[in-house]
Structure formats: structure tokens, C-alpha cells
């Protein structure tokens, strides 16, 4: 029996190749079930008009039980978008990539969430702790817990929790 991870990714890939990605998102490379690359662009009016970014997804054997490692590519002259939740090393502070990850979410769902995160941005700036973070951040963005205010969550938000 193939691993859950391989079967899931095979199905996601089939769907992407069959139905295509939502507008502004396109698959750049997916030669295996370890690393995929997407191009992501914000459509319509936004601070990121005419800017295309490259997103990298890394999957381990636990996918989709555990989240993929997602980051913007910052090598080969590419840059991460300037955004209050995106560090200059490409790491992204988004709760759906961390403790709000659900195994029901897919690669395309992550792309769409990040696209809307950029689309709704009011001011282009780096996270306040960018320098400190980049100096000490581990290579794998999953190793870091994000504590930035107003972290990006997916469309369905949780019921309000009672402030303690």
C-alpha cells in the first residue's frame, strides 16, 4: 500500500493537471512528492500588482497529517514579497501553516490563502522582528512557532474563544 502522503499528493497533482489552478497561481515544477514549486501573483488592484513570487512546498511522509513546509523562494535573484507576515528569508507567519493546519487543506488551498493574504495587505513592510528572526531562524520554517499579531488564518475562522 502506498503511503497516505504519496496517494494524497498524486491525487492533488492529478487535479491540478486536470482542472488547472485558480487564477494567478500556476504550478512551476512537481517532479516528485518531496518538493513542489508554484508561481503566485495577485490579480486585480493590490500593492503587489505585476509582481510574481515563487512558493516552495516541501512534504514529508507525514503529509497531510502534518503541514507542508511552505516558504517563498529567495534564491536565484528571487525575493519574498514585502509583507508584515513574510520574513526576508522567505518564511511565512501564517497560522494555517502552523497550529491551525488541517489535514483537509490542500496545496492549492494554501496557495489561495497566501494569495489573499497578499491581496488584503494595506502596507508593504517587513515583520517588526525581521532582523532578529532571520539571524536565528532554522532552515525549516516548520520548526518555528509564529507569534506575530493577527496571524493569517484560513477562510473559516474558529468560534471566538473566551479571553482568559
Amino acid at each position, binding site marked *: 500500500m502506498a503511503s*497516505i502522503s504519496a*496517494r*494524497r499528493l498524486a*491525487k492533488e497533482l492529478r487535479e491540478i493537471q486536470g482542472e488547472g489552478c485558480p487564477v494567478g497561481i500556476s504550478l512551476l515544477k512537481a517532479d516528485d512528492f518531496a518538493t513542489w514549486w508554484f508561481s503566485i501573483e495577485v490579480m486585480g488592484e493590490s500593492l503587489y500588482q505585476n509582481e510574481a513570487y515563487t512558493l516552495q512546498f516541501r512534504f514529508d511522509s*507525514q503529509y*497531510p*497529517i*502534518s503541514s507542508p513546509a511552505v516558504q517563498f523562494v529567495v534564491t536565484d535573484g528571487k525575493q519574498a514579497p514585502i509583507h508584515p507576515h513574510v520574513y526576508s528569508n522567505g518564511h511565512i*507567519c501564517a497560522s494555517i501553516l502552523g*497550529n*491551525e493546519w*488541517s*489535514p*483537509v*487543506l490542500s496545496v492549492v488551498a494554501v496557495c489561495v490563502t497566501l494569495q489573499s493574504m497578499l491581496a488584503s495587505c494595506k502596507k508593504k513592510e517587513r515583520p*517588526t*522582528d525581521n532582523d*532578529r*528572526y532571520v539571524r536565528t531562524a*532554522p532552515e525549516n520554517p*516548520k*520548526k*518555528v*512557532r*509564529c*507569534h*506575530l499579531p493577527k496571524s493569517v488564518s*484560513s*477562510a*473559516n*475562522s*474558529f*468560534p*471566538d*474563544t*473566551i479571553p*482568559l
Partner: protein
Amino acid sequence: MSSDYEFSDDDGDYYDDEEMLDGTQEDDMDMDAFGEDFKVVPKGKHKAYEVEYDSLSQAAVEKLMKQDVDHICGIFGVDVSTANLLLRYIKWNKERLIEKYMDNPTTMLVAAGVIVPEASSQPAPAPIRTHSSTSSGFHIPKSLKPKVEEPFVCPICFDDDTSIQTLALDCEHTFCFGCWTAYVNSKIRDEGEHSIRCMAEGCALVAPDPFIRSILIPEPGAPKTWDRFQELLVRQFVACNNDLKFCPYPSCTNTVSCPSASSKASLATVVPTVSCGALREHMFCFGCPIESDHRPVVCGVARMWLKKCRDDSETANWIKSNTKECTNCQSTIEKNGGCNHMTCKKCKHEFCWVCMGPWSEHGTAWYSCNRFDEKTGVDARDAQSKSRASLERYLHYYNRWANHEQSAKLSLDLYAKTEKKMEDMQITSALTWIEVQFMKKAVEEVDKCRMTLKWTYAMAYYLAKGNQKDLFEDNQRDLEKAVEDLSELLESPIEAENIPTLRQQVTNKTVYVQKRNEIVLEDTANGFVEGRWKWNITVEGFDDPESD
């Protein structure tokens, strides 16, 4: 919180630790309820430098948790797993839970992930699940019954096998058994998570314990994962209670209860060195993250000193080197024992390893190697010489601090060799095993006293000039001299015929060293209680230094 992000391979607890020491947590722990059976090492308060504490096994902590759970079950009329979810959500603050729950039970149950928000429209919200009649509190929730809906495809693995077993929490978000198993295992084992939410996106329902148990039981590694889950629950409970601290040593599951050191204010008067009771080496500080005994100095000062040493590590690194040059003939000398009395092999010059001064001066009363001559600092006028003076001052203390640590290590190494020799002698001579044991006790005592001495240098660095500091340094010097004497004796050559004399000398000096150590610890501890110690820097919990 000191940082906006943290690495996830820490203890896996996502609760802020802000509450830990600020006294906001109610002190509702009933000490009498601990029960004699669960005291691993009962400790009475004997000495000024000892703090009263209890060591608790995991089972003992679980018993405390169960008391809270039973209490909540009794008041709210909910079952054990609901009470557990509520208490975990509210960080075991019973009073706050009672208040919030009385105010609006539905809101509370939704927030804790016990019920789905829609269920709030149903008539009787409080006892969602009827109280189980089994004494263990274990019951099979209705959702455990495999679903028999027709064309099921697992939304995670896309398995559509008709014989597939499925599971859902009360929210009815259904997934296959395999996905649930992988998810629960990954949450517990990889993420160290004790609160396991439904897998559906945005669903906040939390899996109750019987559900988790039913998933783990058929697994081959189940007992281990289930045990790990129990440990995570205990860790959360302990982290939520200021009176408790989990043993920091790897794979230890004991807890220490130390109510007298649970507030920030108390840490200005006590140094709460505790032991979890599982193993003798499991010693740690209840008041700060230092995993060793830092008596006699209080947590705030110890932490400040360690930070300074970290920040200045490069400047001071040369000190740790094991070789120095003889001040007389410049030949290289290597230190391979704990004793600081060095004799150059080449020119026979005797000197002190720490200050490089002649050893002859160390035996006389007027000379003290431990005291820093503050006059050099007073003379400094311009900024450059001032900063040089302050570096010299720091190096004086750091040098002695680092040297005690290193000497302790070296004397342990040396003892290992000596022990071997003594065992050999036991075979070749008429000595009994008991007769060769005196060295072991002495080495242990030297090690202990060097740790005290080490921290006295951290303390002296921050002590304000004056009578009190002078008295402190007198006691420090007397202990240091006693330790160096004993250390030297321990390195004298051992022959079968000199053993009886050596034994007598070593035993006498060990007793004396013990006494001197006791004096330093007692007097310093009393000084904290009496508010005698003044600092040359602002220390939390103490008066600001007087400007001079």
C-alpha cells in the same frame, strides 16, 4: 514573553508562561491532601539555606488532577472527560472556570472544544454526556460506532474502500480510522500536543480522552503513545501551577512542590535548590531555569551573572586554557589536577594558578587571592582606563568562577585515577575496602565546596562595597583556603605505608571544609532573610543601589 516566536522542539506547550511567577494563579493547592503515600522524599526544614519541598511522582500529580476533576464534575454535573477538557482549557484555574461556567455554560463548553457551536440551540446544554457509571470514568462516545453512510471517501487520504472503518467526534466530521490514528500519533509524539482538535478545517472540537484512548489501543506502540499523552497532561497541569515544577532532567517524570518559592518576591530571600527524588543527581533550582545548585546566590543575581559570562565569553575564553607560562622561567606548565598550588617542573618556582602570584604569600593571613583590589578602579580617570579597570574587575571574578568549575572537573578526573590505584593497593596490601573509601568522601566534598565557591564569586562581583562584602569575602577566603589545602592533600602521592596518616589528615580536613562550607551557606542565607546584602546594580526584588 521574551520573543515573538519560539522553536517548536521545546516542551510543546503553547501556553504563555507569563502567569508562572506573577502570583495571579490562585494558591488553592491543599498540601494536606497530598497524602503520605505519595511523598517520595519528605523534607523537613533544618538549615537556613535549605528550602522545604516535596517530591511527587507522576501518579501523585495525577491524583491532584483527579481531585480537581472530581470537584468540577460534582459542581457542574458533567462527566470526567468534559471536566478534563474544561480544566485544561482554563489552565486548571478552578475558580475562574466556576465563575465563567456559571455565567454561561454553553459559551464555556464551546470555547473548550467540548461541543460544537450549533449545539448551543439545543435545550439542555450542560451535561452533554451523561455521567458514566463505570468507576474509571471511561465510556465509549456514541461517535465511536463505525458509520455506515454509503459512498464514503475519506477527505484526507481519499480512500473509498467500502469496508473502511470511520470515526467522527460529535461534530460528525468523519475520517477514516487510519487517518485518525496517524493524526493522533503525530500530535502526541511529534508535536507534544495534549489538546487534539478535530481534523476538519476550522473545527474547534477537542477529542476527549476516551476517544484518544480508543484510537491508540489497537496500535502496536499504543501503551507508549498513551503514556506520553498522560505525561503531557501532567506537564500542562504542573506548568499551570506556581507551586509545582517538573523535573528538567531528560526522561524524568517527577515533579517538585515548593510553595515557599512560588512567588517572585520569595526569590529575594530563598535559593530554592530542590531535588525531584528520582535520582540523587536530579538537582535543580525551583526558582529559575538553572539546572544545578547555585547556592548561596539568589536566582536574580545568578541569572545576571550567567548572562554577563555569555555576553563576554570571548574576552574571557583564554582563562579556561589549561596551560600557562611559569612567571619565573617562562616554560609551559599544564594543569592536570584540581589544586591551584603549582610547582614549575623546570625551576621549582611555586605559584598560584589563579593569580599567578608566588604561592608563599598564599599561606599568610594578609594575602587574599579572592579579593579584588578596588583601588585600581578608583584611580582610573579617563574612559579608556575606566573600561580597562572594569574589565580587569570582571576578569578577576570570572577567572576564579571558571577556575573552580574547571578544578572540580579536574579533581574528579584525577580521583578516577586514584581510585584505580587504591583498588590495586587493596589487592596487594592488607587494606580493606572501607579503609580506602576516605578519598571518595573528600573528593565529593571538594566538588561540592567548589560549586559553592564558584557562585560566591558571582555574588561578590555584584555585592556593594562595604563591611558586609568584607565579611562575605572573609568567609569565602576561609572556605577557599580550606578547599585548596584539602585539594593539595588529595594529590599527594599514595603509597600503601602512608595511607593511615593520609587517611587521618584527609578526614580531619574534610570535616573542616564541611564546616567552612556550612558557614558560607548559612551566613549568606541568613543575610538574605535579614536583608543584609546590598548590590552595586539593580536587582529585581531588592532596593536600588545607593549612589556614591
